[in-house]
C-alpha cells in the first residue's frame, strides 16, 4: 500500500509523485453537473453531479489529481482525474449481527420439540 502521494524534494516545495505508465489506476469525472441532471430525478439527486469512476491502465505518467488517460479492460480510452492507484476491493461482511446469530438455535429447538431431525 502506498502511504502517501507526495514526496518531499526540498523544505519549501513538494512535488507530486508520478505514477508510471501501465499502472492499474482509477479515474473520476463528472458526467452531468448538478443542475444538468435529467428532469425526472428527485431534488436531492438534482443537487449533486452524476459522477463516474472507471479503472484501467495509465497511458502516460501522471500524478494523483492530474487529468489522465487510461485504457480500460475493454480497450476503451477514458480521460478523467487520476484518483487512485491499484484501487482495493474493501467490501466485506463486518461483525456478526446478534439479531441473526440465535435464529438457528431457536429453530433447532423448535424442531426438536416436535420430534424432528435437526
Amino acid at each position, binding site marked *: 500500500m502506498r502511504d502517501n502521494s507526495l514526496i518531499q524534494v526540498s523544505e519549501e516545495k513538494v512535488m507530486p509523485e508520478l505514477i508510471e505508465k501501465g499502472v492499474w489506476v482509477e479515474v473520476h469525472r463528472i458526467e452531468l453537473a448538478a443542475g444538468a441532471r435529467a428532469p425526472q430525478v428527485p431534488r436531492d439527486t438534482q443537487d449533486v453531479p452524476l459522477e*463516474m469512476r472507471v479503472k484501467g491502465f495509465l497511458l502516460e505518467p501522471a500524478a494523483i489529481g492530474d487529468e489522465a488517460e487510461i485504457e480500460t479492460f475493454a480497450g476503451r480510452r477514458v480521460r478523467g482525474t487520476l484518483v487512485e492507484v491499484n484501487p482495493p476491493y474493501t467490501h466485506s461482511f*463486518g461483525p456478526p449481527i446478534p439479531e441473526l446469530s440465535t435464529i*438457528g438455535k431457536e429453530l433447532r429447538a423448535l424442531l426438536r420439540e416436535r420430534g424432528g431431525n435437526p
Partner: protein
Amino acid sequence: MSGPSYQELMARKAGIVKASTGLDYSKYATGALAFDYEKLLADTGYDIDTVREVQAQTAVGNTPLVELKNITELVRALAEPGKGAQIFLKDEAANPSGSFKDRRASLSAHEASKRGYAGVAVATSGNYGAAVASQAAKAGLRCVVVQEAFDSEGVAQPEIAEKTRACEGYGAEVIRLSVGPELFYVFLKVLEETGYFNASLYSPYSILGIETLGHELVMQVRESARRIPDVVIVTHAGGGNLTGTARGMRKAGAADTQVVAASVDLSGLHMASDRDFNRKSFTTGHTGFSMPFTTWPDRADVPRSAARPLRYMDRFVTVSQGEVFYATEVLAELEGLQRGPAGNTSLAAAFSIARGLDEDRIVVVQETEYTGAGKHPLAQLNLARELGIAVARGDPRGNRPGERIVIPQHPWQIEAVEVDLDRVRRSYLGHAMESLPEGARLSETDLEFLVAETRASRSTVEEVMNEFAGERR
C-alpha cells in the same frame, strides 16, 4: 465535460438501440399501442431446445432441485394439522457466475458472437453484469458493464461493490456511476462509441434464455414427486424472471400451476434518490423495480420489453426486508445452503404460502444466487446500522424501509402481503393511456392487446380506458 448533452443523446436513442440490438422493433407494431409480442420472440429463431443446446456449451442450466426437508418440517410445525406444503428450491447459484442470470446472458453473448459484434455492453448493478461478463469471457467478446454503484458521499452499496469485483474478475470494464437514472445516458454513449451489442435484460434473448429454468423445474418436480408443482414463487423485479419462468413452465405442460411474484417491500424509499440509495438494504427483487415494471414494462432500455410480467402472474405478494434476512439465515442453518439474500425473497414468501396449503401440495422456490463479501445479510445490516437504521428482533409488521429493519422473533410471524392485482392492472391501463399518441384512437387490436397484457376482462379494459380518456379530455 465532454460529449453530447442528456437531451441531445436521448434524441438519438432509437437509432442507437436499433444498431446495438440488431432488432427493428417498429416492425412489430400492430396498433397505436399493440405490438406482436409472440412474433418478436419467435423471430429470434430460438426454440427451447436450441436455447438448451446453447446454454449447455457454457455449463449454464441443469441446476439441482433441492427438497427443503427441514424447512418443510418447520412450516408444518407452525401450520394447522394436515397443512404445510412440501417446499423445493431450484439452486440457480450452481450456474457458472452464481445466479440464474447466466441463462439470460447466454443467448445475448451467443447472438453477439454470431452477428460479429466485437463486444457486449450492459446496464446493470446486479448479478446480470457478472453473468454477461462471464459469458463474454468464454465467447472471447469484450465487455462493458455500467453500474449505479455509489452515493454522492462516495459510499458504495456493498452488494454492488461485490458485483464490480466479480465483473472485473471476468475481465470486463466496469463504469461505476453515482445515483440516478441518467445511467441510461452513459450507457447509450458507450453503445454509440463502441458499437457493442446491447445485452439488454429486456431483449427477447434475455427472456427466452430463462424459459429453460421454468421448463427444468417442472420436469424435475415431475421426476421426484411424480406430479407437477402447485405453486411456483418467483423473486420479482424487472419482470424477466417471472415472464421467462412462466413461459417455460407452460412449455413443460404446467399451465395450471399458480405463478406467484414476490418482492421485498421498499415502499417509502425513492429509487432515484441519492439519499435513499444506501438505505434500501436490497439491490433487487424489490418493489422499487417490480411495481413500475409490472404497471408499465416499456420503461426499459429497449422500446418493447420482452419481460411482460402481468401477462403471467397469478398472484403478487410482498415481504419485508427483515423477513428476507430471516429466511436467508434459516436456509443456511437448517438446509446448509448459504445463498442470497435478494434471491431469498421468494423463500420468505414460501414460509407463509406453504403454511396455508395442504401437505400433499408442492411449492417451488424458483431461484437462489451466490453469496459472499458485500452480498450478504451481515454486510447489509452493518451498513444499515452505520446509516442510523434500527435493526431489531420483533414483529415484522413493524418493519419500515429506511428507518427500521425488524427481524422476526418467530417463523410464524412471516406473512406475505397480497398486492391487489386489480389495482396493478388499472395502473397499467393508466400508463397505456398516457403513452397513447395525441389524437390516436384504440383499435380492436389495441383492445385485444390490453386484455392479453393485463388478463383483465374485455369489459373492464374498455371501462377503465374510457374513464382515463374522459380524464384526459
